[in-house]
């Protein structure tokens, strides 16, 4: 009797409903997250049973004796800055355009968004082919309009490879920012827009004093999500260049993978992961606090 009543109590039912998700999340997402810190203090090849504790040695090695690491860090920072600037700006422009009274808005929106749903690895393969030095789209088009002098090995030239990869990334991610901005634009109060028009505000005035302030939270969200997504850039690099040529497109996520899974140094790979993770957390934690406060305020 006692037992069956306890089994029917709301907290018990709640625990039963929560348990499957919480357990699988705890074991396969949170535990590896903690384990990456542990592994970063070990010398281990990932397969043998023996792991040796080496303290901060992996970090010392990564910072002092790993020329690739600093290049990867620099590329990651450059990539992140570009990812926060360009796709959101282009997405914002497209969203502003699609928010006007023009024909064909729905198909245009569907088209801009389409690359978002394609597997990043397929995007990488597509663009690798488009950058093909001999028969690819870009060089053929350049040759077609008489710009032979501009023709390059877009992914083979260490000075341009990172930007070539980034162009593909822009193509894939602009739709994501655009959709978020469109949703934000649609929540801008039309009464306010019309009121300011009646008060004599021009197109630019309405944008500057009504639309833009109303979009502040959306802008924050898009910027943060773009930033976080850019730190994760792995598949597109893996698929297009593998970090080359001469490590010129190497980035932290990719280099952590290479150290651990390709070169068999789980300690160093994890140390690189921890660096990337700390950078990510420095952005994520303030953002989560902000968005939870906002959510609670809406409640």
């Amino acid at each position, binding site marked *: 009797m006692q037992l069956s009543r306890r089994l029917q109590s709301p907290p018990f039912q709640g625990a039963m409903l929560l348990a499957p998700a919480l357990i699988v999340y705890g074991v396969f997402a949170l535990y590896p997250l903690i384990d990456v810190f542990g592994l970063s203090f070990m010398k281990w090849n990932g397969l043998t049973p023996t792991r040796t504790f080496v303290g901060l040695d992996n970090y010392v090695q990564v910072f002092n004796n790993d020329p690739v690491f600093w290049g990867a860090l620099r590329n990651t920072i450059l990539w992140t800055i570009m990812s926060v600037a360009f796709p959101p700006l282009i997405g914002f422009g497209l969203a502003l355009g699609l928010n006007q*009274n023009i024909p064909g808005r729905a198909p245009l929106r569907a088209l801009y968004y389409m690359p978002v749903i394609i597997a990043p690895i397929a995007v990488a*393969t597509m663009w690798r082919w488009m950058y093909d030095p001999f028969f690819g789209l870009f060089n053929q088009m350049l040759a077609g309009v008489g710009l032979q002098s501009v023709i390059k090995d877009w992914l083979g030239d260490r000075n341009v490879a990172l930007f070539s990869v980034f162009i593909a990334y822009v193509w894939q991610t602009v739709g994501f920012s655009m959709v978020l901005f469109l949703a934000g634009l649609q929540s801008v109060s039309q009464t306010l827009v019309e009121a300011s028009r009646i008060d004599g505000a021009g197109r630019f005035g309405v944008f500057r004093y009504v639309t833009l302030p109303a979009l502040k939270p959306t802008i924050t*969200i898009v910027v943060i999500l773009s930033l976080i997504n850019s730190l994760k850039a792995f598949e597109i690099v893996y698929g297009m260049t593998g970090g080359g040529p001469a490590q010129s497109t190497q980035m932290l996520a990719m280099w952590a993978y290479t150290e651990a899974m390709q070169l068999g140094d789980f300690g160093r790979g994890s140390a690189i992961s921890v660096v990337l993770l700390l950078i990510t957390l420095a952005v994520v934690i303030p953002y989560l606090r902000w968005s939870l406060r906002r959510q609670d305020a809406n409640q």
Partner: protein
Amino acid sequence: MSALAHPFRPAGANKIDPVLVMLWILLIAVAALWIAPFIFIVFTSLKSNAMVMGTGAFAPPSEADWGNYSRAWARGKFSTTVLNSAIITIIKVPLGLAISAMAAYALSRIQMVGRRIAFLAIVFGTMIPFQVMLAPLFTLVNSLGLINTYVGIILPYLAFGVPYQVFILHGFFRDVPKELSEAALIDGASHFTTFRRIFLPISLPVLAALLILDFVATWNEFAMALVILQDNSKWTLPLGLMSFQSQFSNDYGQLNSAIVMTVLPATIVYLIFQRYFISGLTSGAVKE
């Protein structure tokens, strides 16, 4: 619809606005840029190698070589990779949504100790880049003896799908009027029944949106599959495509057929269920 009857006119005006016409032309130009890669890939997929080398990039294939598709299918072992992707997706997506919905219900509607902490821990997961954790994830799955198994990939997929879905559904369930659930609970229904009979039916549109988003995400996932599914008999479509690229990158027609076949299922799902993508995405990030 009334807006579409008078295009290019700003609200309230009855004259065509030239700025809007210019803007529209610009948007069409961007659209052309955006669609160009697709056209190029489809055209190439129908060309023989000689035709690829001999004709312009945007020249339609003079004679469609559909054989590229069947040859790429066989060489790329698509029958294996499509089957693996299908099995993993069909098990993972509904199962993941079910456990997420249950958890979201418990976290939003049942008073219990530690639910704020549990909620925060889960929401935190929406932001963790799992690409950072490929090595520990491999270590964990390997220690369980699940490398190269469906279970070994499905469990991490479930884990990384939970945060976003719980976050969205939590927000949705929280806003369900109290009267609705309390009436049922007072009538003696358990939380299990209330969840199943009341909350699931009213949240069907959200569930549909999440289902479709998750289908595409699972179908496309590459990084985790790369470390966990190392045996090519267990490869999913993205792994198969990657291997195809590294082996047969000079068979341009076949390579592009392989790309088209990899991308097609997600594209079809997208074109059919387009509006769910938008609603599934925006309901989370941008709330009024």
